[in-house]
C-alpha cells in the first residue's frame, strides 16, 4: 500500500473520491456531448442532402412536365442527338426546318435522362426516369429503384433514403410517375392511360461532399471536445490540488492547534505556578492542579465555588480589607490589561502564605475574564532574607577581615575594590586603589613573577602565590601570601585575592634558617667531634685493654697475684669504658635521628630463638634459666628486625644482670588472629622500687646508686632500648615489685614502622653486659703459623698490641707506621695478610688500599681494615676483605684472620644469568678458597666493579640486558678495569674466528660443561697465582 494512502485523512480520502467522480462525470459529459453532436450532425447532413435531392427532383420534374406538356423538344440532329429509335412510331419524329435543318424529337424522358447523365458525370444531383417497362432499356431501374417501384405499386407515394449509386452513397428521392395526356404521345402504344403509374422518377444527390464536410466538422469538433475535456480535467486537477492543499493546511493547522492546545494544556496542568481564571462577578471559574494544591482545595469544583475574598485573610498585610483590595486589583488589571502585585492568600485549610499574582485580562468568546498566575514566594522571601543576612555577614567579614582582600579585573589586571584591611595594609584610600593595576603594587624587579602568578591564578593553576613582595604607597615593601579565587560576575572574570601579611613570619623564617644553618654547622661539628672523640678514646683504650690482656697472661711468670688482679681491674675498666663510649655514640646517633629504619616482615619466634641462642653463654654455670614463651602461630611483624633484636638483647642482658636465681623469660603475646601485641621480658630478679620505675630509663640512672657499683653496666642500656622502641613506634614500659622481679614490655604498634629509608646500620649492638658469644667457628691458631702479617698503623700502641696478639697466634709480624712504609714493606716482603688502620696522617687507609690494589705485585694480598671506626668505613672501602674494630681482642683477631686466610686467594666475579650455573661456579670457587661476587648481566657486573675489588671475572656471553661481549668491550676501554683478567665460560657455539678473537683479549675461553666440572678451578688458580707473583700464597 502506498504510504500516502495510509497517511491520508478521512477527509482527504473523501476528497479523492469526489475528485475522481468529478473527473469521470466530466469525461462522460464530454463524450456524451460529442456523440450527441455527432448524431445531430449526421441528421443535419441527411436533412441537407434530402433538401437538395428534393430541389433537384422538383426542378427536373418541372422540366419533364414542361417537356411533356409541349410534346417534347426538337433538337438539331447531331452525332450526339441522333433520332431516337424508341420514338420511331411517334409521328413527326423528325422534321426539317425551312432552311433545311433536320430536327428530331426529344421527349421528356429522354431530356431528363440525358440531362441526368450529364449531371451524373459531373458528380451533381441528377434525376432518373425509370420504369419497369421502359421504352428505352437505358431507363431500366437499378436495384433500389426497382424496390421502390414495387412499393409504389403497393400505394406509397414517395420514398427517400440513402443508397449507393455506382458504389458511392447518394441521397435518393423517388416518386411515382403518373401518366398524363402528354405522355400518351409516346406511351400510348404501351397501353398506358392517363392516371396510370407508368414508373417513377428518382433524384439522386451524392453524399460524398456532405460526408466529407461532416467528417471534417466532426474531426474539428472532436478536437474541440478533447481540448475541452482536457481543460476540464485540468481544472478538476487544479481544483483538487487546491482542495488537497487547503485540506492539508487545514489538517496541519488543526494538528498544530491540537498540539498547541495540548502544550498549553500541559503547561496549564503541570505548571508549578498556580493558574486561575476568574471573573469579578463570579469569582474563580477554573484553576489548574497547582492552584488547587496551593490553595489546599479538594478539587476544581471545590475551588470554583470560592472567590478571591474567601481565599484570602480578612486583611492584607497593608491593612486593607482583602475584599476591597481584590476588587481594586481586578479593576486595575481590567483597565490596564494586566497587573502584578503581592497578595496574602489563605488556603482552604486556613494557613496563609504570601504570593505574587499576575492578573491578566482575557476575552474568551466575547466574555471578559481575568487570569491570575500565582506563585508562593514564602521560600523566596526566606531565601532573600537569608541572602540579605548572608550578604551582611560577609560584608561584615569582608570589612573586618584582618587579611587584605582585593578584587581585580582579570582582563585589565586593575583593581576593582578592596576591603579596609587592604587599604590599611597598602596605605591607599579606596579611590586611589581602584585606579591601580596589579603591576603598580609590586616592586619592578618582581613583576614577571607577579604577573605569571596572577595569570596562573586566573587560570585556576595556582591557589596561593607565596611570599610575594608588595609595595606600599609609601614605597616600603611587605611580603604577603596571596591566595586567589577566580570568579565570574555578570560575565566578567575577576580574581579575588586574599593578602596575608607574612613579613614578620618571613623575617622569622630567615632568622630560623640562619639559626638552622648555625645548628647544622654545630651538629656537623658535634658529629665530627664525636667521631674524633670516638677514635681518640678508642685508640688509647685499645692499648689499655690490649696490654693488660697481654700482661695478664704473665708469660714470663714474674707478676704477683695482686698485680694480676690489678691488671684485671684495668682491663675490666677499659672494657667498661669502651662499652660506655659505644653506648653514648649509639644514643647520640638515635637521638640525632641518624638511625634509620629498614622495615621488613619479621618472624618473632625466630627472632626470639636466635636472640636467646646468642645469650646462651651468659647463663652458663649460673642458676638462671633462659626461657622462651612464644605461641605456636605468630603473624609476621613488619619492623626493623636488627633494632628490635638489639632491644631484646639489652632487656634480656639487663634482666640476667639483676637475676641471681630463677629465670628470665621472653614472652610473645598475640591477639586472636596471631598478631603480635606485646613482647615481655620477665625476670625473677631483685625488682625495682615503684618510685624508680621511670627513672631507670633516664641516661646513667639505675634504681639504686649502689646497684651500678654492684652490678656494673653503663646505665645507658634501657635508655637506648626505650629510644629504639620510640624510633620503631613502640612503647617500652616496666612493671616491677621489689623482690619479685620485673617485667619489661614492648608494646607493638603494627603500623609503626611504615617508612623504609636508606639503611645506615648502627654499630653492632652492645649489650649492657656483653655475654660471651657462642663460638661460631673454631679458628685454629695453627693455620696462622709463620704467616707474615704486615701491620700498618700510625699509633704505636695499636701496632704493639696487634703485633703481640699476632705473635701470640704464631704469626710473623712486620709493622709500618705510615702508609708509604707499609706499601714498601708489602712489596719487599712476601706478605700474607695486611692489617691497615684507616685514619692515618698524610696517607690514609683508602689511599694505601687503592695503591695496593692497583699494583699487580701486591694486589692479591688480603687487607683487613683495623680501625676504631671500622664499621663506619665498611661501605667506603671496596677491596678490603674484612673489618676489625678497635680495640682488637685476640679472639676477634683470630676469627678475622682465619676467615681471611680461607678467602685470601682472590676475589672472583661470576657474571652469568643462569642461576644454576652461578651457584655451581660459586660452589667450585668457594671450595677452592676464592672470595666471590656475582652479577646476572654485564650491567650489574659493571656496578660490582665500581664498588668492590675484583681479581678475576668469570664471564658468560649470552645474557640479557648487557651481554658478555659488550661488557668485555666496556671494561677493556676503562683503564681502571682494563687489566682485570677475564675467563669466558660459555655454552655458546663460537666460530673459530670468534673464539680466537676472544682468546686474544681474555685469559681463556672455556666450555661451560667442562669449566663447571674441573677446568675452572685449575684455570683460575693458574691465573691468580700468576697475577699474585712472588708475594702470592
Amino acid at each position, binding site marked *: 500500500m502506498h504510504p500516502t494512502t495510509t497517511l491520508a485523512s478521512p477527509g482527504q480520502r473523501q476528497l479523492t473520491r469526489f475528485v475522481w467522480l468529478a473527473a469521470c462525470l466530466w469525461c462522460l459529459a464530454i463524450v456524451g456531448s460529442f456523440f450527441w453532436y455527432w448524431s445531430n450532425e449526421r441528421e443535419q447532413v441527411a436533412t441537407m442532402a434530402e433538401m437538395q435531392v428534393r430541389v433537384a427532383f422538383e426542378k427536373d420534374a418541372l422540366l419533364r412536365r414542361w417537356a411533356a406538356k409541349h410534346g417534347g423538344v426538337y433538337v438539331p440532329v447531331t452525332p450526339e442527338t441522333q433520332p431516337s429509335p424508341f420514338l420511331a412510331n411517334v409521328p413527326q419524329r423528325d422534321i426539317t426546318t425551312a432552311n433545311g435543318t433536320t430536327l428530331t424529337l426529344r421527349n421528356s424522358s429522354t431530356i431528363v435522362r440525358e440531362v441526368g447523365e450529364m449531371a451524373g458525370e459531373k458528380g451533381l444531383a441528377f434525376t432518373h426516369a425509370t420504369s419497369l417497362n421502359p421504352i428505352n432499356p437505358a431507363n431500366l431501374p437499378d436495384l433500389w429503384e426497382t424496390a421502390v417501384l414495387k412499393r409504389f405499386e403497393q400505394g406509397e407515394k414517395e420514398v427517400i433514403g440513402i443508397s449507393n449509386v455506382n458504389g458511392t452513397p447518394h441521397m435518393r428521392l423517388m416518386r411515382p410517375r403518373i401518366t398524363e395526356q402528354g405522355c400518351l404521345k409516346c406511351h400510348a402504344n404501351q397501353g398506358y392511360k392517363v392516371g396510370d403509374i407508368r414508373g417513377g422518377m428518382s433524384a439522386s444527390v451524392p453524399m460524398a461532399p456532405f460526408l466529407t464536410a461532416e467528417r471534417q466538422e466532426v474531426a474539428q469538433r472532436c478536437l474541440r471536445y478533447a481540448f475541452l475535456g482536457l481543460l476540464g480535467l485540468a481544472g478538476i486537477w487544479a481544483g483538487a490540488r487546491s482542495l488537497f492543499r487547503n485540506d492539508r493546511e487545514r489538517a496541519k493547522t488543526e494538528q498544530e492547534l491540537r498540539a498547541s492546545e495540548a502544550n498549553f494544556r500541559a503547561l496549564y496542568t503541570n505548571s508549578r505556578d498556580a493558574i486561575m481564571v476568574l471573573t469579578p462577578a463570579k469569582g474563580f471559574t477554573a484553576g489548574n492542579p497547582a492552584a488547587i494544591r496551593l490553595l489546599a482545595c479538594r478539587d476544581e469544583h471545590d475551588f470554583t465555588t470560592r472567590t478571591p475574598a474567601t481565599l484570602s485573610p480578612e486583611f492584607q498585610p497593608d491593612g486593607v480589607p482583602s475584599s476591597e483590595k481584590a476588587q481594586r486589583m481586578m479593576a486595575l488589571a481590567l483597565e490596564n490589561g494586566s497587573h502584578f502585585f503581592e497578595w496574602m492568600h489563605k488556603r482552604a485549610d486556613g494557613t496563609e502564605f504570601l504570593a505574587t499574582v499576575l492578573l491578566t485580562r482575557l476575552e474568551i468568546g466575547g466574555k471578559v475574564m481575568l487570569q491570575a498566575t500565582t506563585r508562593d514566594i514564602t521560600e523566596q522571601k526566606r531565601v532573600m532574607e537569608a541572602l540579605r543576612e548572608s550578604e551582611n555577614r560577609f560584608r561584615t567579614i569582608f570589612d573586618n577581615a584582618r587579611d587584605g582582600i582585593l578584587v581585580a579585573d582579570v582582563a585589565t589586571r586593575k583593581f576593582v575594590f578592596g576591603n579596609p584591611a587592604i587599604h590599611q595594609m597598602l596605605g591607599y584610600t579606596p579611590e586611589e586603589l581602584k585606579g591601580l593595576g596589579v603591576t603598580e603594587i609590586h616592586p619592578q624587579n618582581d613583576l614577571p613573577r607577579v604577573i605569571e602568578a596572577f595569570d596562573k591564578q586566573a587560570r585556576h593553576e595556582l591557589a596561593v602565590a607565596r611570599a610575594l613582595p608588595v609595595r606600599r604607597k609609601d614605597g616600603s615593601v611587605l611580603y604577603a601570601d596571596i591566595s586567589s579565587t577566580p570568579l565570574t560576575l555578570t560575565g566578567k572574570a575577576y580574581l579575588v585575592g586574599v593578602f596575608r601579611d607574612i613579613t614578620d613570619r618571613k623575617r622569622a623564617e630567615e632568622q630560623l634558617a640562619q639559626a638552622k644553618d648555625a645548628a647544622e654547622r654545630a651538629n656537623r661539628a658535634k658529629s665530627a667531634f664525636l667521631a674524633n672523640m670516638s677514635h681518640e678514646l678508642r685508640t688509647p683504650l685499645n692499648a689499655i685493654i690490649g696490654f693488660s690482656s697481654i700482661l695478664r697472661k704473665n708469660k714470663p711468670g714474674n707478676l704477683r697475684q695482686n698485680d694480676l688482679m690489678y691488671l684485671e681491674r684495668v682491663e675490666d675498666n677499659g672494657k667498661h669504658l669502651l662499652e660506655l663510649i659505644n653506648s653514648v655514640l649509639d644514643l647520640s646517633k638515635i637521638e640525632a635521628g641518624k638511625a634509620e629504619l629498614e622495615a621488613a616482615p619479621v618472624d618473632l619466634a625466630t627472632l626470639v630463638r636466635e636472640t636467646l641462642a646468642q645469650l646462651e653463654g651468659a647463663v652458663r654455670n649460673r642458676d638462671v634459666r633462659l626461657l622462651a614463651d612464644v605461641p605456636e602461630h605468630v603473624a609476621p611483624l613488619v619492623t626493623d628486625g636488627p633494632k628490635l633484636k638489639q632491644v631484646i638483647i639489652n632487656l634480656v642482658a639487663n634482666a640476667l644482670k639483676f637475676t641471681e636465681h630463677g629465670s628470665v623469660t621472653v614472652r610473645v603475646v598475640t591477639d586472636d588472629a596471631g598478631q603480635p601485641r606485646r613482647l615481655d621480658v620477665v625476670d625473677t630478679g631483685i625488682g625495682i622500687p615503684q618510685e624508680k620505675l621511670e627513672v631507670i630509663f633516664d641516661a646513667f640512672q639505675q634504681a639504686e646508686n649502689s646497684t651500678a657499683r654492684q652490678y656494673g653496666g653503663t646505665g645507658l642500656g634501657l635508655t637506648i632500648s626505650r629510644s629504639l622502641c620510640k624510633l620503631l613506634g613502640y612503647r617500652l614500659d616496666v612493671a616491677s615489685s621489689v623482690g619479685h622481679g620485673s617485667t619489661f614490655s614492648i608494646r607493638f604498634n603494627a603500623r609503626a614502622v611504615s617508612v623504609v629509608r636508606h639503611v645506615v646500620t648502627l654499630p653492632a649492638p652492645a649489650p649492657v653486659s656483653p655475654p660471651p658469644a657462642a663460638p661460631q667457628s673454631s679458628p685454629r691458631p695453627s693455620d696462622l703459623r709463620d704467616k707474615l702479617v704486615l701491620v700498618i698503623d700510625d699509633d704505636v700502641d695499636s701496632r704493639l698490641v696487634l703485633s703481640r696478639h699476632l705473635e701470640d697466634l704464631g704469626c710473623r709480624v712486620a709493622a709500618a707506621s705510615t702508609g708509604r712504609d707499609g706499601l714498601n714493606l708489602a712489596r719487599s716482603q712476601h706478605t700474607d695478610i695486611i692489617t691497615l688502620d684507616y685514619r692515618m696522617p698524610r696517607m690514609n687507609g683508602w689511599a694505601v688500599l687503592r695503591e695496593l690494589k692497583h699494583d699487580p705485585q701486591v694486589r692479591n694480598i688480603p687487607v683487613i681494615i683495623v680501625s676504631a671506626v671500622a664499621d663506619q668505613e665498611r661501605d667506603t672501602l671496596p677491596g678490603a676483605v674484612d673489618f676489625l674494630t678497635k680495640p682488637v681482642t685476640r679472639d676477634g683477631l683470630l676469627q678475622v684472620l682465619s676467615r681471611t686466610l680461607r678467602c685470601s686467594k682472590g676475589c672472583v666475579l661470576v657474571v652469568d644469568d643462569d642461576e644454576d650455573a652461578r651457584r655451581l661456579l660459586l*660452589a667450585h670457587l668457594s671450595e677452592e678458597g676464592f672470595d666471590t661476587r656475582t652479577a646476572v648481566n654485564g650491567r650489574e657486573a659493571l656496578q660490582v666493579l665500581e664498588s668492590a675489588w675484583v681479581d678475576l671475572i668469570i664471564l658468560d656471553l649470552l645474557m640479557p640486558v648487557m651481554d658478555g661481549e659488550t661488557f668485555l668491550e666496556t671494561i677493556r676501554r676503562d683503564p681502571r678495569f682494563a687489566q682485570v683478567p677475564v675467563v669466558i665460560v660459555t655454552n655458546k657455539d663460537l666460530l673459530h674466528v670468534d673464539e680466537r678473537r676472544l682468546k686474544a683479549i681474555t685469559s681463556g675461553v672455556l666450555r661451560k660443561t667442562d669449566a663447571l666440572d674441573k677446568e675452572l678451578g685449575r684455570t683460575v688458580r693458574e691465573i691468580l697465582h700468576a697475577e699474585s707473583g712472588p708475594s702470592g700464597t
Partner: protein
Amino acid sequence: MTSSTPVAEEARIRVRVRADLAELVPAFLDHRRREVASLPAALQASEYGRIRGWAHNMAGTGGAFGFQPITEIGRAMEAATKAADGVTIRSCTDRLADYLRRIEVLYG
C-alpha cells in the same frame, strides 16, 4: 597399581652426583621441572627465544651437575629453536620430562 611398580623400578635412572653439590641439585632439578611445565605454552606461543635461553642453560649446566642427558637434550633443543622446529622441541620436552620423572639422585 601393584603391576606398574616393577616397571617403574626398572625404568628408574640412578645418577651419582658429587656430595658437595647436594645443596644445589634440588634447585637445579626444580628449575628444569618448571621449564618443562612452561615449555608447551612457550612453544604454543612460538617463543623460541625464551625456549632457546632455557635450552642453552640446560646444555651448559646439565653435565656439570652430573646430568649429561640434560646437556644433550638442551643442545638438541637449542638447535631446534634455531630452525623453529616445534616437533623436535616437543620431543625434547617429552624426553626431558621423562628423564626428570625417572631420575634418582645419589650423592657421594
